[in-house]
């Protein structure tokens, strides 16, 4: 019984995402990344995940794109009560999920990551400001 996280994508995004997550958060032995290569079979990815999990695992699959062939293929795993598939993955969401506690509500983690998608503009602050330090 363990928590298993899969990143799945078209081409190398999932593998690169895992490397990016690990650069920030360290090695993640419970994360596995699969990428669909051009001409490849998305069902092969799903078969590999199926072979790796059992009914006692908590499985979270982060897919790249809703409606894309990889997420479409993985959809059939979501009939299992212990599998959650989330589409629209980015680095913020991947970190949010990887660093969340096993009891965390995934809807909350998605909302937190969604808040990180925004325009950034520098708010110029005063130098040597210690207001609010204590």
């Amino acid at each position: 019984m363990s928590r298993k996280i899969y990143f799945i994508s078209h081409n190398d995004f999932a593998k690169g995402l895992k490397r990016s997550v690990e650069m920030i958060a360290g090695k993640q032995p419970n994360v596995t990344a699969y990428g669909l290569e051009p001409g490849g079979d998305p069902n092969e990815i799903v078969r590999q995940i199926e072979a790796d999990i059992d009914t006692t695992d908590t499985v979270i699959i982060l897919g790249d794109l809703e409606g894309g062939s990889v997420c479409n293929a993985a959809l059939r795993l979501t009939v299992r009560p212990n599998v959650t598939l989330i589409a629209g993955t980015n680095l913020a969401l991947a970190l949010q999920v990887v660093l969340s506690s096993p009891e965390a509500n995934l809807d909350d983690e998605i909302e937190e990551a969604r808040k990180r998608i925004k325009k950034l503009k520098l708010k110029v602050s005063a130098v040597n400001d210690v207001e609010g330090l204590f």
Partner: protein
Amino acid sequence: MIKMLRIDDRLIHGQVAVTWSKQLAVNRIIVVSDSISQDPIQVSALKMAAPEGIKAFILPVDKAAKMLNDPRADRLQVLLVMNNPVEVAQLLSELTTQPSVLDVANYGRVAGIEGRHKITDTVYLSDDEVTIFKTMATKGSHFIYQPLPNDAVKSVDELLEG
């Protein structure tokens, strides 16, 4: 209390903002640098890089020491981030209570590794900087090398011997 002093060229970035701040459960991140603290653009960007719920301050060495020596600082959970070993030695000599952990994580690659010795994959020190770390060690300031919480802890004293 100062939970950790981290030497990191990249100052407040993902490893610090996302990972260490959670691990150490800090509520203040203080970047200490004489030069950066006087640059409004860098100060502003660093403040924006702090994670939600954690206040960031960017202060010169003297002012940081004064604030951290204030008795009210005992109640705070502080992560110090610095990018200059000379200033680190200066700050440590001015602090009445030393940080719980001294960690050098990323150093020397931003300024350029030319003329620096490779100590680890992410730490490069010049001869002068090696001397600074050895001098700090003789005064009881022993650094570790641990970029991320689940990385093995290595003794910088031993790395400098090897």
